[in-house]
């Protein structure tokens, strides 16, 4: 188990890809700290290490804070190269959200209502990720109401199939649905826990449903 502070120093410097202005970077730092404080989140790396190599973090989805909390749980150097994938219908609405998503978190916004064959979200994610960026995705697609982890959508499988070199890191988010449940806008400062697990890859010839079930189990296993 390592906290991000312990490992941040030993990481290689991030690729010089960040085009964000100092203001946005400061806002990102401040917001990350605030979110961590408010959600009281402790971060655990279980049989896993933070790294700036290209990765896809996939997590259970319980709250609007999820992407922000996972992003801010990463060490600074890793955060620089990590882009959350978020829903356009929520994050592109209003000036503040749009600014946060585009400038501060450098998010990749996916239009959930307009998914077409020639413009699949997976292609968009991979194009935006390029050869350096890591992604944060929520394979359940939308937030669960009950707090149970739902079935994974197939996007994760296609990501893994098209880019077999990318490490897939399971992430479990505990208790954040109680900090900011679906439909609420004021948070209650309970303690949450973010667990990062060991990487997994798509096995040769592994069927889609088997892989998705295995990935889901990897997230659930971090719950203890």
């Amino acid at each position, binding site marked *: 188990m390592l906290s991000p502070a312990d490992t941040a120093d030993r990481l290689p410097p991030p690729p010089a890809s960040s085009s964000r202005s100092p203001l946005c970077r400061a806002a990102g730092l401040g917001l990350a700290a605030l979110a961590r404080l408010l959600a*009281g989140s402790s971060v655990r790396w279980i049989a896993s290490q933070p790294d700036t190599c290209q990765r896809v973090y996939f997590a259970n989805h319980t709250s609007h804070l999820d992407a922000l909390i996972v992003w801010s749980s990463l060490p600074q150097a890793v955060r620089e190269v990590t882009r959350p994938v978020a829903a356009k219908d929520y994050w592109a609405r209003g000036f503040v959200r749009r600014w946060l998503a585009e400038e501060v978190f450098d998010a990749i916004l996916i239009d959930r209502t307009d998914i077409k064959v020639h413009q699949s979200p997976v292609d968009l994610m991979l194009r935006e990720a390029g050869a350096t960026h890591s992604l944060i995705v929520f394979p359940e697609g939308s937030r669960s109401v009950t707090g149970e982890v739902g079935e994974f959508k197939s996007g994760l499988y296609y990501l893994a199939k098209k880019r077999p070199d990318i490490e897939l890191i399971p992430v479990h988010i505990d*208790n954040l649905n*109680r900090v900011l449940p679906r439909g*609420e806008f004021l948070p*209650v*400062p*309970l*303690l949450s826990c973010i667990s990062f697990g060991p990487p997994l890859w798509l096995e040769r010839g592994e069927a889609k449903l088997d892989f998705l079930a295995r990935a889901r189990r990897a997230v659930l296993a971090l719950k203890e």
Partner: protein
Amino acid sequence: MNDPRTIALVTSVLALLTAATAVGQFLKRHPDRGLDPAAIRTFNLRLRGWWILCTVLAAAFWLGTTATVVLFGLVSFWALREFITLTPTRKGDHRALFWVFFLFTPLHYVLVGLNRYDIFSVFLPVYATLFVLTRVAVAGDYKRFLERTAKIQAGLVVCVYCLSFAPALLQLPVAGTSTATTAAGPSANFRLLFFLILLVQFADCMQYVWSRMLGQRLVAPAVSSNRTWEGLLGSAASTALLAAALWWAAPPFQPWQAAVAGLVVAVMGFAGGMTMSAIKRDRGVKDYGTLVVGHGGVLDRIDSMCFAAPVFYHITLLITGARPG
């Protein structure tokens, strides 16, 4: 804070801690004494906790009453966080919880800081209760209604209301009530608070020691596997003795009064520990801090304090005949 009693108290605590640390380090370096290494490690960890506690307290005391009230307010806030995190809540409790955390808890400490005993003594037990009941009812979820509201209420009373009686000691007009402390001033109140903290910690420690040495009969095996009747009696007796020996440090007390206070603090500390153990057993966790990596929870450290503080406060009132507020 230049009066001789404060200096004497600070010096004796420093001397005691330094001596204990020296012993702890000696035992650590010489593991061949036939002592349980785990016990030595626990002892050293505890000592480190005490050093941190004393440093933080000294800083708060030095900064004054307001800083101390704020410090206790933050501790309450964090303890309540741990309490509510480990008790299951439903979505219908969310709005009530928001106001409990961001309005009732801070406002209660503001009232304590303003020395409004007339309001703060009823604010949480009456008004927060009425609010929580109403807000949860209005939220429209009636499932296990009484159980849910009782949980929030219990958290507020234990973590916030009871603990706040410790900093409230700083506002009591104790100085000058006893002939021995005419020139004491506000530092007398800080000594009173420190006296309470010392007794609570000492009682905890003695309970462990007596249980280890003589413990035979468990009070409630299903709730706690290390709290024994022998530990309780031993801790009550030793704490009463220590309190009587330190009576000069606590302004309004005669030796026998200090002994009674020590006895009651030990018994209440035991009650707090048992209560929190029962809640933890029910939730199936070992300590409140399991969500915070690397250290036990705040609530585990202050459970005895929460139960002892209001009783100690009222004993002081009774003995001095002082009127709060």
